[in-house]
């Protein structure tokens, strides 16, 4: 059993990303750079959702809520102290002097998202299937309502804007590498194999002593952490965070990426994220020029439904493609 091959592939992927980033920074214009950054953020979202959904069959539609938590907290922490009274006059006193540089702010945002995920997980993770999915939608809406109404902290529907554009291609690439590396290592570890087994057959996993509840909670928290980071990056890319951007539509779009790429396949999520971000960028001008708003989403949903009917395992199925795995075989618990 050659363990080396997947590790090789991962190393190559990481190298490629670094080289790509350097090239892009030096050659491409700002517009292309922002598209690449969006792509990177989508990759983070897809891969982290894949961890939660794909490995454990757990259906969480609350990902944008974790993005929002991470995004808002990062924004509040990086907000310059002078600006705060102007934008947020009613901010609670203890929050005003708190100010962190970008990287720690991101981490705090991600950790907060993960903590909320643990709380959510404790409450709802005993539910199954679509009941769990609906509970996560409920969670998303609750978060949206709070963001829209806790004016003193979030500025309500206006959101926070005028954020410093810290995000650049190096930050994005760095975090993409971290996300892929960690999710990859988890998948190919013994913990990862136990997660796969949960997805395949719950009763068997139970019999083997795999603690379903904690495994699922872990998956949710890790996924939420990266979503939170992605939220922070996103906010500082477009220099604003608003409640409406973190909606069920975004949830749906990330799900489409994961399903089309193949739930369980990291390569699949990466590929699908790239394809969809690019497709989205093509649709946007089309929609604006011809006034045909909504066409992009219609096409996305159509593709999703067709894939679900005719090729439900997505592009790469539940695993990495052959050229990545080589002769590596996951242990089966049959």
């Amino acid at each position: 059993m050659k363990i080396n091959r997947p590790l090789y592939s991962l190393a190559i992927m990481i190298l490629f990303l670094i080289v790509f980033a350097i090239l892009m920074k030096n050659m491409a214009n700002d517009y292309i750079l922002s598209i690449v950054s969006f792509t990177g953020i989508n990759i983070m979202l897809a891969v982290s959702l894949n961890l939660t959904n794909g490995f454990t069959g757990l259906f969480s539609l609350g990902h944008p809520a974790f993005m929002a938590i991470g995004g808002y907290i990062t924004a509040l922490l990086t907000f310059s102290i002078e600006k705060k009274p102007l934008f947020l006059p009613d901010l609670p006193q203890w929050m005003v002097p708190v100010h962190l540089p970008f990287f720690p702010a991101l981490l705090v945002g991600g950790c907060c998202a993960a903590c909320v995920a643990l709380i959510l997980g404790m409450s709802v993770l005993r539910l199954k299937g679509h009941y769990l999915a609906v509970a996560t939608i409920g969670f998303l809406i609750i978060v949206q309502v709070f963001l829209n109404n806790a004016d003193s902290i979030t500025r309500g529907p206006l959101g926070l804007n005028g954020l410093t554009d810290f995000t650049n291609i190096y930050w994005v690439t760095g975090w993409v590498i971290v996300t892929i590396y960690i999710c990859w290592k988890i998948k190919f570890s013994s913990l990862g194999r136990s997660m796969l087994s949960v997805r395949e057959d719950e009763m068997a996993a139970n019999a083997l002593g795999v603690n379903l509840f904690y495994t699922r909670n872990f998956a949710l928290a890790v996924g939420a952490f990266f979503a939170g980071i992605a939220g922070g990056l996103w906010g500082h890319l477009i220099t604003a965070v608003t409640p409406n951007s973190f909606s069920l539509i975004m949830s749906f779009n990330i799900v489409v990426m994961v399903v089309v790429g193949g739930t369980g396949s990291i390569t699949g999520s990466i590929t699908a994220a790239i394809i969809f971000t690019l497709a989205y960028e093509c649709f946007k001008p089309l929609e604006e020029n011809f006034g045909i708003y909504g066409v992009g989403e219609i096409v996305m949903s159509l593709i999703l439904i067709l894939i679900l009917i005719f090729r439900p395992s997505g592009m790469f199925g539940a695993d990495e493609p052959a050229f990545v795995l080589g002769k590596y075989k996951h242990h089966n618990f049959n």
Partner: protein
Amino acid sequence: MDLGYLLQQLINGLILGSMYALVAIGFSMIYGIVKLINFAHGDIVMIGAFTTLALMETAGLPFPLVASCVLFTGCAMGILIERTSFRPMRGAPQVTGFIASLGVSIMIQNFGILTLSAQPRNFSFPDYMQTMLNLGPASFRVVDLVIFLTAIVLMVTLMFLVKKTKLGMAMRATAENIDVARMMGININKTIMATFAIGSGLAGIAGLMWGGKFGQIDPLMGFVPGLKSFVAAVIGGVGSIPGAILGGFILGFSEVLFVGLLPPIYSSYRDAFVFGTLIIILIILPNGLLGKDMEDRV
């Protein structure tokens, strides 16, 4: 807190509850028979509302005819959705059906945005509907009375259909055990289609009511009411029609009382309240109040 105010809130709750109940019935019926959540159900409400608008303003048809057309349109949409997105999913894992259903809903919403633009439209019922009536210190409009009475009539008709007719028996048998139902010679394709048609017809009428009650419609209007009606169905116990009716009224009353009795600063939190209730019910009472299905849990 005077009695008049309370009475007014109760009346408002009754009206809102009637609409939630109608939509929740459709959810429960569909879930009961195919064990899948139909996300697009809320969007059928939207289609019902827009159809009403088109028929009344553009074609200027009399109201009873419009209502029948809307009912029919709802049925047709339900059948279309069943054929194109639920039947191919039969046998697939639950979550696959769930995402597909979500996809259909988003497709319909965006189709609405594409063809009708996201701008809200004004909805106007004939003038006599707006006449005010009084019940002691509380007041309501004719349209409210029409909504309530129509809802009751539809619910009673439906209960009769389900409990006393052959089709109703077939629907209940198929919902309980689809394989044995086939062994009895029941054509499950037709039975499932009929369920979707009836449930969706009710949703279409609810759209007509919604437009009449709130006066404004837009392509995304179906999403939140649809989801809230799902909450109502869960409260009552998914799969149970009396449960859906009960849940619809409970939700209607709770939502109105939440807004009416708490200080105004909290009223925009009502959606959070509704979905918080959903999560709590799913955790502590997953079968709802009247439901019998056993859902397996971890």
